[in-house]
């Protein structure tokens, strides 16, 4: 099933520049219903308060790391089916394995291109 361009997407990153970049790419890919959060904790609060179709999250963040947020999402009955794309500077195999075990939908290593992001989204929503 292709991604719904009207679905609400939550972009989670502690760096304002990265949130802006990811939102810009998503906008160029045709998604316009975009929200943002600065860390995993804030993201969880937003996810529980509203209905989101997709989460794009950084790994390294203060307050709550992306991987911990992912585990919390997968442990929550209401949120567990939301696709989560992890964006991170950590390219180690151990990180990838940890994310896969935690239930990540896909994984992008920084720096990445818009094409890579599109490719990953297409794989998630195919």
């Amino acid at each position: 099933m292709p991604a719904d361009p009207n679905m609400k997407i939550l972009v989670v990153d502690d760096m304002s520049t990265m949130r802006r970049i990811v939102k810009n790419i998503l906008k160029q890919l045709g998604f316009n219903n975009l929200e943002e959060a600065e860390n995993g904790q804030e993201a969880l609060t937003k996810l529980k308060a509203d209905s989101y179709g997709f989460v794009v999250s950084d790994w390294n963040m203060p307050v709550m790391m992306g991987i911990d947020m992912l585990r919390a999402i997968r442990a929550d009955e209401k949120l567990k089916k939301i696709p989560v794309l992890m964006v991170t500077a950590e390219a180690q195999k151990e990180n990838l394995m940890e994310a896969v075990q935690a239930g990540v939908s896909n994984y992008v290593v920084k720096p990445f291109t818009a094409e890579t992001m599109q490719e990953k989204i297409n794989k998630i929503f195919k």
Partner: protein
Amino acid sequence: MAQPRGTAQSRDEMDDPEQDVKAPDTKLYEELGELARFIDTTMKTLSEFSAPVNTSTQQLPQALTHLTNLKTLTEQGTHKVMLEVEAMQDNHIQIGKMIKELAHVLQQAQVAPSLLQQVQQVGRQLGQDDKRLLDIMTALSFQDLVAQSVNKLVTIGVRPVPKAGRQTRPEQSQRDVETVGSDEEYLDGPGPGRRNSEAIRF
């Protein structure tokens, strides 16, 4: 040559009770004097080292401030570039719509095909520029990687900084200086009651 204590004292010494008391004291004074001179020399040598170490330690908070500024400045600069890119992207959306409308009108008016093709070519070039703008946008993710590296450096630098406020003085005791070389303290890391040697080590 000094005689072994209490074994080979001469009869004269035995006969002179005052001499009997002074001899060990003199030797003790001599040894203490030698020890004092050794300590003094050592302290002078160590104080020569403490000056450059102190300078480096005092400059650490300044270095951390520069690093934090670097992160803030790159973040601000990146946002400025992004603002311009986003403005151009918005303009392109409007221009793209206008080109489509123009192409439609020209088609309806049955103008020369070459004219219509030129307008469509402008639209294609605009699309290529859109791609370039998106590439500029994603290339700006360098700032995030810079910020992460700066954060790591600041985290490394911040740990011993509270101790760095206490300066090593040349007149410090030998005990203070000796702790600098203690591996045990280094492994334990900074903690309550630590001396200023942590600052030196950092």
